[in-house]
């Protein structure tokens, strides 16, 4: 299992379009990916679970990945978040 921390810097946080992009990216890996925030956890491959966390701009989340491609998976997810989900 690999764990990282990321901060959501995009203006929308993890809602709607960015949340969907996050799920789509996570779904491309076989590892189980979990988001931890404010004492709650969510399966990163479930859009409804992620939106239920209520992650706004500035939220610091912990991400874990567990599986054969866990390293790559977290690198890809971090790149998505750090790249502002393509928002300008």
């Amino acid at each position, binding site marked *: 299992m690999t764990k990282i921390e990321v901060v959501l810097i995009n203006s929308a946080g993890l809602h*709607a*379009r960015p*949340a*969907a992009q996050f*799920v*789509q990216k996570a*779904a*491309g890996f076989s590892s189980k990916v979990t988001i931890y925030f404010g004492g709650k956890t969510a399966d990163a491959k*479930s*859009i*409804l*679970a992620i*939106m*239920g966390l209520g992650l706004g701009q500035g939220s610091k989340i912990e991400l874990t990945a567990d599986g054969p491609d866990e390293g790559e998976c977290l690198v890809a997810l971090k790149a998505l978040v750090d790249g502002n989900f393509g928002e300008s």
Partner: protein
Amino acid sequence: MVGIVVVSHSAKIAEGICELAAQMAAPGQKLIAAGGMNDGDTGTDAFKIQAAIEAANTGDGVLVMVDLGSAVLSAELAVDMLDDEIKGRVTIADAPILEGTVAATVDASIGQSLVSVVAAAEGARELRKR
């Protein structure tokens, strides 16, 4: 991609759900509203639903999301009226219409099968809001 049809008694509800879900859809994702009656009244229209299913079908199957009561009957009737080749690839989900449509849209947009998309929609039944 599996196409999605949203059936509501209200055209505005069906369109609004599609508007929201489209925010989370991949380009090319079919997301078609089939709400209200042709004369603008509230209700569900099997012919309108049938046309929506045909428009949503790109060959990978179609998920139909429904709201209350007779929406289910109209959707079933619409499926019955389809050509046999499409009929076997259409599923009416037993799921909350908004949450189910959002979950299904994200799943369909990553190219999942109809079985998976239906499971995503129906998984929304388990969602707790708080």
